[in-house]
Structures are given as C-alpha cells and as structure tokens.
C-alpha cells in the first residue's frame, strides 16, 4: 500500500482510539447508572484483575442460593487472598456445574475472619472473591456470569474465638443466582 493510504489508515486509527479515550472522562458519578459504565481496554490496569460488576435486578440477600454449591466453599489462609492449591479442585467442580447448568450465574461472596480490623477485612473479603472470579474465568467460565461481593468479617459462618472458627470464616461462598 502507498504512503498516502497508510497515512489515512493511521489517522483513522488515531481518531478511533481518541473516541475510546472519551470513556476515560465518562462520569462515574453516583448520580449515574447502577454500573457506572464499563471500563474500556484503556482503563484496564495490568496490576488489577477483571473489574467487578453487579447483577441487574438481583437482591444479594434474597436472590442467591448458597446451598447448591456449599460443598465448594473455598477456604483461605490467614491474611491471604491466594487460592490454596488444595482448594482448586473445588473450582474445577464449580466450572463443571456451570457447564451442566447453562445460563446460570454465580454470586461469589468473600469473607474474612475477625482477626483483622473491619475495613481491612472488607477489602480482604473482596480480594478473595475477585481471586475466585479470576480463577474461574481462567477455567473458561464467562466473567459476565460471575458476580462478587464482600462482607468483610461481618457475616461469620461460625461464631467463636478458636482457630477452627476462624478457619471456617476465611472463605468465598459460591452462591447460585436464582433464575428470575
């Protein structure tokens, strides 16, 4: 191709990219829509995981069934959001379940034990939920069918101040979103 065509193509490409840049100025104000707009490729940070989303019209406290996949609750080490090797088989089972139940969506709820301060625990629960989401996406589960939330240390599975109780609370529960 000649230089003129290449030049034109470059201009068109630059303009297209500039149009994408508009999304950077997009107002994510609280006055906006529920999801505040989806970030474009420009906003994806190599240090971050897949940006979280919230399912439309779903009440996290009423429309999520945590019993179906209760056996696949993922447990974490103290102060850690790394999925332990021994827990990964559970997520394989979750991915298999989704393949067998096409069209279902999951709500991944992250939790922490009470030995952290409340705010740090909330972020730790979030990191755990996002880690599970990322891992499932890596197994081929569409990220769009995976939602997350964190409850910090506010919803323990087991009350008490023993190591056993703490271990049971450092978790991500795999909730199944009830079909509308």
């Amino acid at each position, binding site marked *: 191709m000649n230089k003129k065509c290449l030049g034109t193509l470059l201009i068109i490409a630059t303009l297209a990219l500039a149009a994408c840049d508009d999304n950077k100025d997009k107002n994510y104000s609280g006055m906006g829509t529920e999801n505040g707009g989806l970030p474009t490729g420009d906003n994806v940070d190599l240090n971050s995981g897949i940006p979280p989303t919230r399912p439309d019209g779903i009440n996290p406290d009423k429309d999520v069934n945590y019993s179906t996949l209760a056996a696949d609750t993922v447990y974490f080490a103290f102060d850690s959001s790394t999925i332990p090797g021994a827990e990964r088989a559970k997520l394989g089972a979750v991915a298999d379940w989704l393949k067998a139940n096409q069209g279902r969506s999951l709500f991944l709820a992250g939790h922490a034990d009470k030995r952290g*301060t*409340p705010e740090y625990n909330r*972020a730790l629960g979030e990191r755990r939920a996002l880690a599970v989401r990322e891992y499932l996406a890596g197994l081929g589960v569409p990220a769009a069918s995976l939602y997350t939330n964190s409850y910090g240390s506010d919803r323990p599975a087991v009350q008490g101040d023993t190591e056993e109780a703490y271990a049971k609370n450092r978790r991500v529960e795999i909730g199944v979103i009830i079909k509308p």
Partner: protein
Amino acid sequence: MTALKLFNPLLRSILLAVLFGSITVGAQAQVNVDVPTNIRVGISLSGSGSSAATEVLSADLKRTGMISPVGAGSGDYIASGEATDSGVTGKLVKKTGEEVFSQTFSGKPRAAVHQFADAITKAVTGLPGFASSKLAFISDATGAKELYLGDIDGYGAHAITHDGVISASPSLSHDGSKLTYTSYKSGYPDIYLIDLSSGSRNRIAFFPGINSGPAFSPDGSQIAMTLSKDGNPEVYVMPASGGSPTRLTRTRGAETSPSWSPTGDRLVYSSDDRGSPQLFISSSTDVSEMDHLVTGNSYCTKPDWSPDGKLICFTTRTGGQFQIGVFDVASRTAHLITTSGGQDPAWAADSRHLVYSNNGHLYLLDVVSHQSLPIDTAVGGAGEPTVSR
C-alpha cells in the same frame, strides 16, 4: 586500686541510672517538657444551670489531662460566669485579676458549657480543646450494625440509622456538620453522605465492587475512599458533592483506610502490597511514589493523621491482640501506646488525645500519659469511632 574505685556505690548507681534510664526512655513516649500539666482553674458559676454546668465544665477541663478544676477561691486562673437555659456568659481571669477573655456562648446549656471549656483550654494550655466535639461510631447492640452519634464525653449517643443492614467505617467532617460512611442498604457496600443538620442522606459512591472507608478532607470538599471498581481495592478521591473519582494507587495489593494530612495534599493509608498491611503516604492528587512508613510492626491498618500533622496513629496486631501505635512523622519512628488492647483510633482536636475501641467499648487515650479513660456512651458493641475537630 583504681579499678575497685570504679565500683564504688555512687558511681555504680549513676551507671545503673544511665543504663536503666536509657532503656525506659526508649519504651515510653517522648514527653515534651513544654506541654503544660496540672494547670489549676478555679470554677465559680452562678445562674439557674450553675450546678449542672459546673459538673460538666469540671469534667471537660479534667479530661484534657492538663487542667485540674479547683474550688472558686483558688487556682492559677478563675473561670466564672452565669449558666442558664440559653447558654453561658463566661469570663476567665488570671489569679492576678488580669482578664483573659469574656465571652457569651449561646445555645443549649451543655453545648454552651463545652464551648466555654474549649475556650478556657485554648487560653490556658495553647492547645485546642475537644469538649465540643462529636463522636460517631458503629454498634451492633440492636443485632445489626447501625451508626450512632453523640458527644465525645459519651452523652446523648443515639442511633442515626435504623436500616437493619451492615453499617461501617463512619467519618465525621472536621467541622462536625456532615458524616460519610459505608452501608449495605443496597445489598452492596456503598458510600453515603449524611447532612447532620437536615438529616438528609444521599448515596454518593456505588460503583461495582466495594465502596468503603470514606474520609473527609480537612476542608470537607473531598472524600478519600477505597473502591475496587477497577479490579482491586485502591485509594481514590472524589468530590464530596459527587463526581468522577481520581485514582491514587496502583498495586496488586489492597489499599484501605485513607486519612488526610492536615494540609490536604497527602494521604496516609494501609496497603498489603508487600504481603502484610503496612502504612504508606502518597499524594492526594495523583498516582505517586508510595512512601513506606517503617513502624517495626508486621500488621498496620487504619491510620489517622493528627490535626497538627505531627503524628499518625494506627492499629497494629501483636501476639494475637490489637494495640494502638503512634508514628512520629518528623523522626519517622513509632511506638505502641496501649498494652491492654485497642483498635481503630481517631484523633481528637488537640492532637494529644484519641478515641479508640476495645472489645466493644470506647476509650479516650492521652498519648502523652498513656492513660485510657472509658467513654460511657451507654451503647454496647461499639467500634470504628470517628471524632469531629
């Protein structure tokens, strides 16, 4: 013979004192010899509300840790005046008779007395008083975590939310007019802003992921917060009136609990990017170098920057228990100031006292004397205190 002389009793006790003294100095707070202690203020109030006012005024002055309220006849200073339903007309004179100030404090009796106490504190110690400050906190006394508001002496604490959902991480604006906090009212952790005079509440940050740990800037125009909307919990700053947040951190770790420098140009926060949560300082306007504050502790969260900019308090965890630590910004050194447990500290206006929680109770801690006094809010299960300045 000379060697034996070295071990004579006098020299030995001097050597021991030097050794022992240097060890204890290392373990204690730096005591600033310029900080006033035990200034005696005589109280002489008249009027229909004088008896209650005297009680409140004495308690306020004593709580500063620097003033001893005494009887009307004695004192380095005399605080006099009239206390009625409409307020306090107050005067402070030195024992020489020289007047320091004469002022009318209008309003509800208790509030007026608190203002009088603060004016006295400022005049005799040079430090701001904190008697007029508001205290907000979270309590699960009703079974759900609700938001409570009262006075810093514990008086009048009452629930200001009744949502039956998780409320968390409240932050009062420095002038006490507004409060921002996290609530799961929508089912997700979102940030709300409450105007305390009108009672109106608006949701200001509800991005996907978590919206938590909001903190007002010193002038109240901005709120720093943790958002995970871009894939990871990071620190952002947003106008308090709503609008696009500006991202300030980019790490693989979780950044939480931002707190503003008094000049508003920097934020201190906790990040676990290096493994366990540590304290860092960054710019409040752009992504910048993260300045790691070395405290000597492997777990540091929930920092709060003192109003005078000199100290940063934080929560640390050692031996399975939370304790309060203080980091000196100029010398870049830190030490623990509690031994019986404590977490989530928040500075009071004088940069000398802070409020913290331990096992569901709130306490006022004097970082110079290390003395903790319980704050009786009559509300159990209390935590995450925030104090106006």
